[in-house]
């Protein structure tokens, strides 16, 4: 696998290198011009969307992610980096040399680097913390742990919370663990939980960078979040009570009730990562931009913290967590392909939402954002639907004041988009970055989890879709 890392770096930076030099020189001279170019590119997409057939690599990649581990596992395990990069290269080549549109690629590269910097740093820093919980795995104890995970995912991100808690959760349930334990963990801690703050989930973070107030989400969504968490936890509780009662356990083990933590210093690293989230020229005026480079000071801090926290980590904590870079490598390789190949898919979504913006209601924004967030990355999906919703009122997402106006005047659309983008990430293993990591860690502990389709058919459809339908009926149905 390590042989592929240079290929990944080569691939990502080739986008940077192949971008025409005059684009950078203009960028360096005048940032306003970039903004105008962005608008121009946006209008070009609205007037001349990419042809539908260029979405083929994206569809092929999604199908292979879904079917690879199921039907041709060995090939997939050894070749998914090549497949992901090869399919991504088709789209990159098309945008560079056919559409002559390096701007879309560069924006995507920036988003990818931000995405992977945040995930990597949270993954590595939380991987050096070992939590031991010596408590009996009663259904109530599990509910409390999942609720705790949902709350802290708003402070350390769904990735950080997932990495921190998945192993103690498995350890606590080691005598009676079933696939549903992990699936509900993905639902609650890796996705829905992170719906209250911009740190919780990447789409909300992108909204924050565009100008949405940091506390807007929690003040407008907390009751939807709370109701959803209560419903999903109640369903989990019913599952767990059933499992708990139906199995014969040896109840003679004495539990101390203690919670022991190793690698506490890594909480400082986590704090640095969280603070660095705000180190962005769009948030703090004094932060210098590193344009034309496709990353900023924030990403440099995050990668540095990842490196330092790994080098200085408590070895016993790493051993207890069986720390390995494989899960983050898997995410890095798969998502470089996903980010590249989904550019035309997102542009077609932008085109359609712009074209039919007038007719779009909160219902459509909710389900549209949700369904697409299940299989596309939820961050750019969120931005496209936000752009379309603002377009309904003649507002521009690139204008900070317009965003402020939109969040106060028409909150229902932003609520629908925010809720759907975060919650529906739980629908598939690829809906959100931590889902795959939790799956990988659980399987390496010996827990057999359902396939891609098994997850959707056995759990997402029967559990999440009814819950999300209730949320839609209560809060968004007929609201426009």
């Amino acid at each position, binding site marked *: 696998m390590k042989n592929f890392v240079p290929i990944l770096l080569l691939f990502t930076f080739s986008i940077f290198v192949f971008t025409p030099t005059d684009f950078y020189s203009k960028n360096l001279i005048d940032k306003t011009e970039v903004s105008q170019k962005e608008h121009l590119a946006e209008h070009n997409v609205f007037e001349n969307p990419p042809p539908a057939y260029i979405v083929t690599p994206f569809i092929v990649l999604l199908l292979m992610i879904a079917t690879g581990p199921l039907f041709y596992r060995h090939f997939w395990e050894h070749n998914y980096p090549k497949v992901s990069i090869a399919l991504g290269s088709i789209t990159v080549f098309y945008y560079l040399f056919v559409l002559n549109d390096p701007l879309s690629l560069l924006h995507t590269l920036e988003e990818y680097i931000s995405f992977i910097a945040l995930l990597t740093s949270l993954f590595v820093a939380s991987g050096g913390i070992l939590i031991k919980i010596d408590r009996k795995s009663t259904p109530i104890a599990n509910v409390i742990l999942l609720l705790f995970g949902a709350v802290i995912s708003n402070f350390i991100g769904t990735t950080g919370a997932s990495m921190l808690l998945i192993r103690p959760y498995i350890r606590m349930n080691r005598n009676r663990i079933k696939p549903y334990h992990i699936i509900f963990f993905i639902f609650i801690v890796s996705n829905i939980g992170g719906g209250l703050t911009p740190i919780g989930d990447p789409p909300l973070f992108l909204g924050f960078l565009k100008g949405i107030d940091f506390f807007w989400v929690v003040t407008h969504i907390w009751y939807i979040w709370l109701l959803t968490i209560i419903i999903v936890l109640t369903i989990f509780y019913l599952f767990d009570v059933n499992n708990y009662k139906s199995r014969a356990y040896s109840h003679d083990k004495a539990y101390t009730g203690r919670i022991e933590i190793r690698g506490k210093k890594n909480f400082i690293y986590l704090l640095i990562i969280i603070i660095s989230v705000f180190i962005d020229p769009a948030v703090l005026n004094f932060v210098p931009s590193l344009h034309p480079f496709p990353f900023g000071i924030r990403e440099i801090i995050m990668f540095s913290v990842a490196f330092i926290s790994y080098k200085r980590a408590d070895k016993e904590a790493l051993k207890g967590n069986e720390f390995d870079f*494989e899960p983050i490598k898997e995410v890095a390789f798969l998502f470089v392909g996903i980010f590249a190949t989904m550019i035309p898919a997102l542009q077609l979504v932008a085109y359609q939402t712009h074209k039919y913006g007038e007719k779009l209601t909160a219902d459509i924004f909710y389900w549209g954002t949700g369904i697409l967030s299940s299989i596309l990355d939820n961050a750019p999906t969120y931005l496209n639907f936000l752009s379309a919703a603002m377009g309904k009122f003649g507002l521009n997402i690139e204008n900070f004041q317009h965003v402020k106006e939109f969040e106060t005047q028409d909150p229902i659309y932003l609520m629908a988009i925010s809720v759907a983008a975060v919650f529906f990430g739980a629908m598939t293993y690829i809906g959100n970055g931590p889902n795959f990591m939790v799956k990988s860690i659980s399987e390496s502990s*010996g827990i057999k989890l359902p396939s891609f389709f098994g997850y959707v058919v056995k759990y997402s459809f029967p559990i999440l879709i009814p819950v999300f339908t209730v949320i839609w009926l209560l809060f968004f149905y007929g609201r426009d």
Partner: protein
Amino acid sequence: MSTVKEALEKKRNGIYYNNRVILPFKCEFLKIIFEDKIITDFSSSNPEVEIIEHDNFTDIYFKRYKDIQHEFSEYENIKLIICEKSEDIFDFSKHIKILLYIEDEHLIRIELPEENQIIID
């Protein structure tokens, strides 16, 4: 022939060459966890592994791999759930969980899991 218990007490190492793992004991295999792959089929038609017993040791061939050395980091391991030949395989309390750490110079370090290391039976 060494039992699992004797091998653990004497802290005997295993060895590996490419995809061949050689364990210094004989046992009944119940589950092998190789990365995130859970192997429970030890029949001759299984495309994942082949187990060959010798008088004093046991071979495991991971048939999907050319060389297992690069598959594991410093903190990762191959997990085995096994049972002594002489013990009752139907008694879960007799099942033994062991970890195989891939080291340099063809060595495999064999350890019992620590309290916080997870292997689900």
